[in-house]
């Protein structure tokens, strides 16, 4: 009995960093990140390489730590900017997932919505030769509208016909993928790259190869917008009636109904919102990070974003941090594999592990609070 008590108190002491409930929404993801890096370190050790060196290379490649040498016109700043460039669509996509989650819906169709809006913007604005000051806002607008329409369709099908959103989004993903691939291959194909023709620079949301102070950098204009939108979503969810109603529908549909909230309307609204965020992700991806569309391929961002949203606790600000981390690992992996001789694929394994451990967050929370109760009991019985 005595030994058992000691065991409780030891594990209780070991858990001190994640004991405070107020900070658990931050400490638990951080703990899962640490554990996955340790797990990855073990794998790298087994392969006979130095894990610390590998992780250092990872951050060097992402532009967070300086590399030993740079090619002409490149520096840490240019690397960091391309990290932000890659991260922008992920932030939007994860916000899209998070907003739908708040309404209790799973938007698995982010990839399809991204592709649809990216394709429309490419066709309408990308090849039009419009002036940059008109083209760029127009691209954003098309992204929002196209994504919103597709998201709204999913919400409407759910409300009107009781079609599970997981099924309808999967079907729409396939339909978008094939139909758009057809149009690209018929009308917009570039015979050399086997992708859609490149869009005009004026329509692109990332300024490419801007020469400043002898550096050639890519400036992602969408990134600022992503931060602003994240703060806006946070404000909307916390302070407005719309946000409150959406969350009420998400936490208990029946209770929301009894208080007079229009459940169907709010579900459709949440899906429109989620879809337009996905649309923004689409235009910043296909008309920002890239400038063409590869036919027949859905971007993996749509699925990664579900997990990134989870890692950020579906909290807009948390999402900015979690997508920063995931993009860092993703971006740094090329440099790491060239420097440390470790396969690039290990990066996605690390990401997978982080997500796996953070999925256990609820259990850890539960276990910690149980341990806490036991500890209080133990102290009571001692005194």
């Amino acid at each position, binding site marked *: 009995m005595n030994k058992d008590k000691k065991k409780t108190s030891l594990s209780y002491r070991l858990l001190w960093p994640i004991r405070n409930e107020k900070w658990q929404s931050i400490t638990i993801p951080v703990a899962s990140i640490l554990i996955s890096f340790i797990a990855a370190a073990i794998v790298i050790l087994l392969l006979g390489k130095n894990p610390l060196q590998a992780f250092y290379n990872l951050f060097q490649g992402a532009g967070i730590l300086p590399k030993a040498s740079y090619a002409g016109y490149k520096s840490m700043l240019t690397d960091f900017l391309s990290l932000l460039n890659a991260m922008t669509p992920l932030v939007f996509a994860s916000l899209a997932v998070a907003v739908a989650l708040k309404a209790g819906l799973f938007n698995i169709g982010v990839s399809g919505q991204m592709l649809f809006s990216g394709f429309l913007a490419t066709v309408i604005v990308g090849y039009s030769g419009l002036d940059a000051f008109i083209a760029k806002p127009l691209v954003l607008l098309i992204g929002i509208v196209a994504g919103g329409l597709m998201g709204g369709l999913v919400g409407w099908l759910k409300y009107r016909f009781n079609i599970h959103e997981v099924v309808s989004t999967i079907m729409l993903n*396939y339909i978008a993928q094939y139909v758009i691939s057809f149009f690209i291959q018929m009308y917009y194909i570039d015979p050399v790259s086997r992708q859609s023709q490149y869009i005009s620079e004026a329509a692109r949301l990332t300024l490419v190869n801007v020469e400043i102070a002898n550096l050639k950098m890519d400036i992602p204009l969408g990134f600022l917008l992503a931060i602003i939108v994240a703060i806006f979503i946070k404000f909307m969810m916390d302070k407005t009636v719309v946000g409150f109603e959406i969350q009420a529908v998400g936490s208990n549909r029946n209770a929301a109904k009894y208080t007079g909230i229009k459940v169907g309307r709010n579900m459709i609204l949440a899906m429109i919102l989620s879809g337009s965020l996905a649309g923004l992700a689409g235009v910043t991806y296909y008309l920002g990070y890239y400038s063409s569309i590869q036919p027949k391929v859905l971007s993996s961002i749509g*699925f990664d974003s579900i997990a990134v949203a989870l890692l950020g606790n579906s909290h807009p600000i948390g999402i900015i941090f979690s997508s920063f981390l995931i993009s860092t690992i993703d971006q740094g992996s090329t440099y790491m594999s060239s420097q440390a001789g470790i396969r690039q694929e290990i990066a996605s394994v690390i990401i997978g592990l982080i997500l796996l451990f953070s999925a256990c967050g609820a259990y850890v929370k539960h276990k910690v609070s149980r341990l806490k109760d036991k500890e209080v009991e133990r102290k009571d019985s001692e005194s």
Partner: protein
Amino acid sequence: MSTIIIDGLSFALPLFIMAIGGIFSEKSGITNLALEGFQGVGAFVGALSAVLIANALGTDVQNMFYVSLIFAMIGGMGFSIIHAILCIKFKANQVISGVVINILAVALTAFLTTQINALVFGAASDKFRLGVSERFTIAGLADIPVIGAIFTDVYPFQVIIVVMAIFAWYLLYKTRFGMRLRASGDNPHAVDAAGVNVLKVRFSAVLISGLLAGLAGMCFAYSISANFSSNIYMGYGFLAIAALIFGNWRILPTFAACLLFGFAKSGGTFIAQAMALPSSYTDLFMILPYVLTLLLLIFFSKSNRAPRALGEIYDKGKR
């Protein structure tokens, strides 16, 4: 006409067995979006063991067909333990667990495939070559008009799938275990009150889904792609989920849904070929199964009813 049936069946049956796996899991109350990952890892383990054993014995990979099927089932089941533990023991959100497992499956198999290819075979390759499995034709039956196509150019795995599907149907609807499994998804507290461990029932249901999905993944690898690579993650797992929701979580309607997918897919390709259209038009016909599903769902999903406790974490103390 007969090519539509032959190709349609060879696609529909693996999809069907995977959907049955999904039905087992979801009927027991565990949402299973992880089918995609299960089938990929199953195919990976099956392909890996086939390649390794063939290499050790010095025979051709083609002879390892049945061995690889068995290993694929073991692999899929082994990987599904993660989903089971996460959902049942760790009380994680089941949809999130499924998505995470899919991401992990893609990453792990891609990493291990290149790593093992480099270590064991000294080749910089991201796939295991398997070849297409042999087919057979049943002489007498194949001569019957129209229906005869069912017995023409059959993959051996199709027979295995049919046998397993009948067994799965029996297990789910005619045995005590099946009854408890179905009850766990609708009213877990009643199952608990009857003295059955709900968590154990759900655990075994998820393992069964992993086993069947692994089998399906290996069948896809041996028929459609003729190798194992990350091409295995074509979204067939999600298609199986769509089929089972379409089939209202029952095995026979799900079979019809899978046949619809299979025939719409092979039919679309057939029409495009018959009309001698350029290859890009095939893309347009490829949407047939998905558009059909959406349209049919609009008419039928009013009566769709998911298992009542689906996706809910079982909490003994809850009323």
